[in-house]
């Protein structure tokens, strides 16, 4: 029962952060929100007893891809002005 409540809470949090990532005008905030979606998704996978997937999601989704987005953002900013 407790894990279902936790899973529901994490699911709602992920939805809120995902909407924030799409709607926010500030790109830095949007990238961080997208990274946080992955971070909470990895906790959700752990709650749902899939530690393998959780590890991949935490390392790639919230670690590497966020950094890659920031590198690309930096590059685009330099080219545009």
């Amino acid at each position, binding site marked *: 029962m407790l894990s279902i409540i936790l899973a529901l809470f994490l699911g709602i949090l992920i939805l809120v952060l995902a909407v924030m990532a799409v709607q926010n005008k500030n790109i830095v905030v949007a990238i961080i929100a997208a990274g946080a979606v992955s971070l909470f998704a990895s906790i959700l996978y752990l709650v749902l007893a899939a*530690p*393998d997937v959780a*590890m*991949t999601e935490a*390392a*790639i989704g919230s*670690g*590497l891809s966020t*950094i*890659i987005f920031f*590198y*690309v953002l*930096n*590059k685009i900013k*330099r080219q545009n002005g």
Partner: protein
Amino acid sequence: MVKNSFIFLVLIGLAAILLNLFAGFNGSTELGTIAAHYASKGIEEVGSANLVTSVVVSYRGLDTLGEVTILFLSAAIIGFFLKVDNTDNKNRQLKYTSEILNTASQVLVPIMLLFGAYVFINGHLSPGGGFQGGAIIASGLVLMFIAQPKKEMGHKMINIVESVSGVSFVLLGVAGILFASGFLDNKILSLGKFGTLFSAGIIPIIYILVGLKVGSELTGIALSLKENQNEA
């Protein structure tokens, strides 16, 4: 306004389709035939304490090879398009990295590299495996890139590690045809004692190779992007 209402209609349509699926789903209480075979015979056939690993590396090893190939292709394409000539990146202005990031990276990077190696060496015993370990190692190295942007790191070493581990992975698979019952069969080495580090035949070796390959590929992608920041 018309566009927004169109999006709204599409969303309602998607919700109707998914609601159908959701209503029709009532969970299965027992495993299917193949899954039941993997779950019941996996331990004696493969000898890996982590059943996910026995499916990923042994029963469905070909899929893992395909995944690694796709990752290799994407890393190669990114490296191809982001190639920079290192002529005038000496005079670029670097932002000052904060003391906290610098100190934390010195503590964390060795631990992250060690943990990544632990995850892929113990892939057949504990959760995780080559892909996860490689991703953790790549995250550690990327943290190092961020904390010390002045430090140069060559692509040569990364490329050598990646190529050697990829070729050895395929050669081990072919050795499975010659010395055991099929491509990527893990019984080339003896299965060993269940639950120890040197068990499950060839799985630890394959996972070390996959970990090195994935780690070097992801590090290569991040390194290409980092070097591309040099262009004014």
